[in-house]
């Protein structure tokens, strides 16, 4: 697998990722395009630039861990894992079918290279903390990256975990919130507002970075900043656009959990380029 710091190369991978997301969800006729598209730059930057990992040796003990706590966004994870060489690209279209390794939510039984089975919201940060504690105990350099949805932060367990990591000075864990402002029933602010969101994480003791979650250079700098912080975990609040890259999906709550039609797919692929 080729890693790169080159922004244009990463942007090209992001384009391919968006295409694959649209194609696989269209083929599956169900899935969650909006929250997959919003997290593309986050995952591409992690897998192809930031993380220490080896797709030919997925259980390498010193690897960095990534957990997609917002498991419904798995098409983006499947796409980057396939492009990185963990799983076959030519099977992506089997998403959600009986027997497919690309299950409706990430499932370690089907893809052992996954770090965690997710989908029941609010639990990935705690699991990531467990992995990070194990790494610290063993003296391994592994870092743990947990990607949270914004709606997911309405779960109480997130805040149990948010209390734990800073108290234990866990600077080997980074959580990234895909703050696309939309959940299934509508806009987050109309359902159960998270604001003041950054202040909440700060008051819990996290190093908080509020950034543009679609800017790859900004993501690169933020992950570097997080790595340099000692004695506290970092929360990157990535301001994103739900459905990013497909005009009729952007900021549209409908596309939280509705697959594109065949015509919509063709339009979307034209826009993504």
């Amino acid at each position, binding site marked *: 697998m080729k890693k790169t710091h080159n922004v244009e190369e990463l942007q090209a991978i992001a384009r391919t990722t968006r295409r694959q997301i649209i194609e696989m969800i269209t083929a599956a006729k169900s899935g969650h395009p909006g929250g997959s598209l919003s997290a593309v730059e986050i995952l591409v930057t992690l897998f192809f630039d930031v993380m220490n990992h080896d797709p030919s040796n997925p259980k390498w*003990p010193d690897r960095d*861990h990534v957990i997609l706590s917002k498991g419904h966004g798995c098409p983006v994870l499947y796409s980057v894992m396939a492009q990185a060489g963990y799983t076959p690209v030519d099977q992506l279209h089997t998403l959600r079918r009986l027997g497919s390794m690309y299950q409706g939510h990430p*499932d*370690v*039984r089907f893809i052992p290279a996954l*770090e*965690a*089975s*997710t*989908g*029941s919201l609010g*639990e990935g940060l*705690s*699991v*990531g*903390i*467990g*992995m*990070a*504690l*194990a*790494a610290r*105990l063993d003296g391994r350099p592994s870092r743990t990256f947990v990607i949270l949805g914004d709606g997911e932060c309405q779960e*109480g*367990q997130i805040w*149990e*975990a948010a*209390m*734990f990591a800073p108290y*234990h000075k866990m600077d080997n864990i980074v959580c990234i919130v895909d703050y696309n402002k939309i959940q299934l029933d509508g806009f987050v602010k109309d359902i159960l507002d998270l604001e003041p969101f950054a202040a909440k994480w700060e008051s819990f003791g996290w190093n908080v970075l509020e950034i543009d979650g679609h800017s790859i250079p900004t993501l690169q700098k933020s992950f570097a900043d997080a790595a340099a912080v000692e004695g506290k975990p970092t929360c990157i609040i990535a301001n994103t656009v739900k459905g990013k890259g497909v005009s009729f999906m952007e900021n549209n709550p409908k596309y939280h959990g509705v697959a594109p039609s065949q015509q919509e797919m063709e339009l979307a692929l034209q826009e993504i380029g």
Partner: protein
Amino acid sequence: MPAQTQSERSKYELKLGVATREAFGKALLELGRENKNVVVCDADLTKSTMTTYFAKEFPDRFFECGIAEANMVAIGSGLAAAGKIPFVSSFSAFVINKGFEQLRATAAYPHVNLKVVGTHSGISIGEDGPSQMSIEDLGLACSLPGFIVLSPADEVSMRALVRAATDHNGPVFIRAGRPKVPIIYQADQKFTIGKAIELAPGTDASIIGTGLMTSEAIRAAQALEAENLNVRVIDLHTIKPLDRDAIAKAAAETGAIIVAEEHLVDGGLGVRVAQVVAETHPCIMEFVGIENTYAESGSPEALLEKYGLTSIRIADAVRRAISRKR
């Protein structure tokens, strides 16, 4: 009645030993000394769950999670996924009920090597009352695919089964109690997960006990000897997977099975045993457990008596079962 059989039952002196939670804490300390991969999480109850012994000797491998059981269980799953052998412990009522979703989604579903120990189970916690009592835990734990569920009766079996749980690769729930309980086993007794132990032979009926009801089952069988009733006693220390052979054999050879548990009858061991009986060798059954209610405050002894969890009530059930056979 053969004298041999009488001595099999009367050999149990049932001297009071330590609580199973105490035996758990000591076993955990021993395992911690032997295996550096053993780590422990607790939720502000170390002095009650007895993880305190481990925590004091191995502070680096002990994680105090505070009163946040959901987070604790999922942290345990993360530790397990990263190669540790984590024990997460709290009162059974809290770790099972507040942590149940995390037990389902982060432990059972990905089948990680997590060990869950619920102490202060049943109603014998006593004065603290129903909010702290765990009478649903066996049913809930057994509903999780792939989980091993253990319910040791005394300090000897707890110590051995904590070790067996550590050697087993996969999720395990262990149920422990608050009060001191009688010692049933010799120190060198061997235990195998999934293999019931016949404590006394018998042909008129079989009592299957688990947890602190096992010693009550022995007492009931001892008392019934005076009525010339020859009652088998089985300790079912493993609730899941059940020892189907031992149950089928008891059903076939004695024609009546009485299950005694400090748990709700609904969803409890009795229901699980009845399934095996129905599938193998249908026979008369009676159930001694808590009937569709929450208990209250009181001394453990008073509560066990009021809610029918005594050798006297087990003996009543045995007599009923035997009369139904005729």
